[in-house]
């Protein structure tokens, strides 16, 4: 039986002089986060509870009466303390913390759903911890004709009850005052309340009894005709799917259109910063480290910040409306066939923009097995960083047929998504045995979303991303830059000779000759770097894919981020390092030759490289986020292993089959 024993907390804990620490608890969709945001706002900090991947938010509020701060701990939404869920586990750990236990537990209750919310409240009262009840959504209750005798409720619960409307901030000051005056010492639980550890059935019977006594007008379980009608459409197999496609198209349109402006600004700012550092710091290894290693690496990661912030802002708005729960049921029909839960659609769609926010948004999925399955396959979705690589390779593959190139480009997206779904199905039979949890979700009433909650959700996720970018990802960037830039090689004789020639030439001709010398030097530097040497050493491994040492260097250097492939190939060909795929770059790369003089990008090689980049895990930041979100290195290594293996086998098969068919 997946339930946990709920024992009373320390029987006679010493009474604190003042309230210093308050735990906020409540069922999901009760406005708990709104209360917390109203109290703590931007001062709040989000972190995983030690040893778990469950978020706990902490913030402080000034206590005007005692000239001190009160710490608020916003615990994850939960229905009860008995179910063996990560949320219950973390809540019990915080409540039982021997070093810093909360002095008061504030239970946020949805007044429109009093009975079910009272079950958790009853469990807390039975534990012996001082409780203050915040009876939220009183405006909504009034609009439904509900009225309560809050004094009678307080009497029955033997704790303060404060009616509030958290969305408008109404009653929050009274709540703070009630917290301040909350009993310091545990007191006897309500007489009729079942003892700690009682079954949910007994607790529900008690909650029913209390509800009957305190609701003075209206009916709690009255039919919500509006919600009922809308649900019939939004969960309908056809109309629901149409609505889903419409909502998602809108979401991604807003995401791409609005995020592109700040993304351009971030790139420009980092570009200016690099130019400024280049002007201030003398040329040499320190300047290279700062401009290319640190600023270049950070720029490539931080550029995704607007997409992440905007995505979480929009997801929070959608979640607040109540629509996401309906959309999960619409998508479950498709995704459950591959062992994925209905809620996986947000991470998988998001991963088409960037795997990082995609993986981060998998937190929406409550079950760990389902969350892991989604995180592990998210990088298969073709992200925006793959676009320049797809453009280059499909153009090389179908140089004279733009229609076929376009088809191949679209095919890459299908292949990536298909490989992801198939892999999820395979994991369901192997590493993550079992099917996705069958969907059982509360369908909350449709509500107007909270703008403030959405802003704070975006802030939380953005800070989490920046922490990652500023530590692990930056360290990786520096290492990869160092591998690509060192050891520095002397200028080749041919380049030196061109420069000597330039000294005697007319200015225009001299510039041309110096440019040629620069190209030769850059090419030699790339080939002589550790990454270049690694490419040569690793080349035999990639020989079955048709890759020569240059293509292998492209694969090795793009291990940090796959879009680097285009600039690496461009450097190897000419030394220019163009990252944009224009006609000039394509025609130059098309003309690249192997050491024996044969063309490098034959149809077979191009096809193999394309397949490789669709399926391979060429993105170290993704691995670091996977490690963080799964709580360990194991799943990040697994992701790297199976994606690399699949990419290698599929690309080698493609090359060999095409070669045997005479297409080489």
């Amino acid at each position, binding site marked *: *039986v*997946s*339930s946990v024993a709920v024992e009373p907390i320390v029987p006679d804990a010493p009474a604190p002089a003042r309230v210093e620490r308050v735990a906020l608890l409540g069922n999901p969709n009760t406005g708990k986060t709104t209360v917390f945001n109203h109290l703590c706002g931007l001062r709040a900090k989000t972190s995983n509870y030690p040893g778990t991947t469950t978020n706990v938010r902490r913030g402080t509020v000034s206590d005007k009466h005692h000239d001190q701060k009160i710490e608020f701990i916003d615990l994850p939404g*939960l*229905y*009860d303390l*008995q*179910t*063996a869920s990560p949320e219950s586990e973390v809540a019990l750990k915080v409540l039982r913390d021997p070093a810093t236990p909360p002095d008061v537990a504030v239970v946020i209750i949805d007044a*429109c*759903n*009093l*009975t*079910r919310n009272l*079950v958790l409240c009853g469990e807390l009262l039975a534990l012996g911890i001082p409780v203050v009840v915040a009876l939220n959504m009183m405006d909504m209750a009034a609009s439904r004709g509900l009225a309560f005798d809050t004094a009678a409720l307080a009497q029955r619960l033997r704790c303060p009850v404060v009616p509030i409307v958290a969305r408008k901030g109404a009653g929050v000051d009274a709540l703070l005052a009630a917290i301040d005056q909350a009993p310091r010492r545990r007191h006897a639980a309500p007489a009729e309340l079942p003892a700690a550890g009682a079954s*949910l*059935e007994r607790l*529900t019977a008690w909650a029913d009894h209390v509800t009957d006594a305190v609701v003075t007008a209206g009916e*709690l*379980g009255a*039919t*919500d005709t509006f*919600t*009922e009608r809308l*649900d*019939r459409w939004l*969960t309908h*197999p056809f109309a629901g799917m149409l609505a889903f496609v419409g909502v998602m198209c809108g979401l991604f349109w807003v995401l791409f259109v609005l995020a592109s402006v700040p993304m351009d600004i971030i790139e420009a700012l980092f570009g200016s910063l690099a130019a400024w550092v280049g002007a201030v710091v003398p040329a040499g290894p320190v300047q290279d480290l700062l401009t290319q290693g640190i600023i270049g690496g950070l720029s490539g990661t931080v550029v995704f910040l607007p997409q992440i912030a905007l995505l979480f802002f929009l997801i929070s708005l959608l979640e607040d409306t109540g629509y996401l*729960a*309906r959309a999960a*049921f619409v998508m*479950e*029909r498709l995704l*459950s066939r591959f062992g994925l839960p209905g809620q996986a659609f947000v991470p998988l769609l998001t991963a088409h923009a960037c795997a990082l926010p995609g993986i981060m948004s998998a937190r929406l999925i409550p079950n760990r097995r389902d969350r892991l399955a989604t995180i592990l396959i998210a990088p298969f979705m073709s992200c925006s960083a793959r676009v320049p690589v797809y453009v280059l390779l499909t153009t090389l593959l179908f140089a004279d047929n733009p229609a076929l190139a376009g088809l191949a480009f679209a095919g890459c997206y299908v292949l990536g998504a298909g490989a992801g779904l198939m892999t999820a199905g395979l994991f369901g039979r192997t590493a993550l045995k079992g099917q996705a*949890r*069958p*969907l*059982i*979700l*509360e*369908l*909350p*009433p449709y509500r107007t979303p909270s703008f403030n909650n959405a802003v704070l959700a975006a802030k939380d996720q953005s800070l989490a991303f920046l922490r990652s970018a500023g530590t692990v990802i930056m360290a990786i960037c520096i290492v990869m830059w160092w591998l690509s830039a060192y050891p520095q090689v002397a200028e080749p004789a041919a380049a030196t000779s061109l420069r000597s020639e330039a000294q005697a030439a007319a200015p225009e001709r001299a510039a041309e000759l110096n440019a040629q010398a620069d190209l030769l030097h850059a090419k030699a530097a790339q080939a002589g770097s550790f990454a270049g040497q690694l490419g040569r050493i690793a080349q035999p491994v990639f020989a079955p894919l048709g890759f020569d040492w240059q293509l292998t260097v492209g694969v090795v250097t793009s291990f940090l981020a796959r879009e680097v492939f285009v600039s690496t190939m461009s450097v190897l060909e000419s030394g220019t390092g163009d990252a944009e795929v224009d006609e000039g770059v394509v025609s130059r790369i098309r003309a690249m030759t192997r050491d024996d003089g044969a063309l490098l990008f034959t149809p077979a090689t191009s096809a193999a490289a394309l397949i490789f980049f669709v399926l391979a895990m060429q993105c170290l930041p993704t691995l670091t986020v996977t490690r963080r979100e799964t709580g360990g290195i194991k799943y990040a290594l697994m992701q790297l292993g199976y994606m690399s293996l699949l990419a290698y086998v599929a690309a080698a098969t493609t090359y060999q089959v095409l070669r045997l068919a005479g297409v080489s």
Partner: protein
Amino acid sequence: VSTSAGVISLTSLPVDATARLRYAEIDAEARDLLRGLGLTDGSLLRVCKQGEPCVVQVRATRIGITSRVARAIMVEQA
């Protein structure tokens, strides 16, 4: 689906019918979640929608249940 006298599958009920939960042949995790949502043993429910998903209302809580789980929830019409 009909089993012992009067006990039928949740999916057999028409929309707007009310019934009491008798038992559910589902795994413990799903059962715990339903109980947490208020669908405890013997509780009264109203069918809001049949199909995929099946939607029921228990007191003031609307619960969406995927049909493969709903089929295994046995109720007695009230």
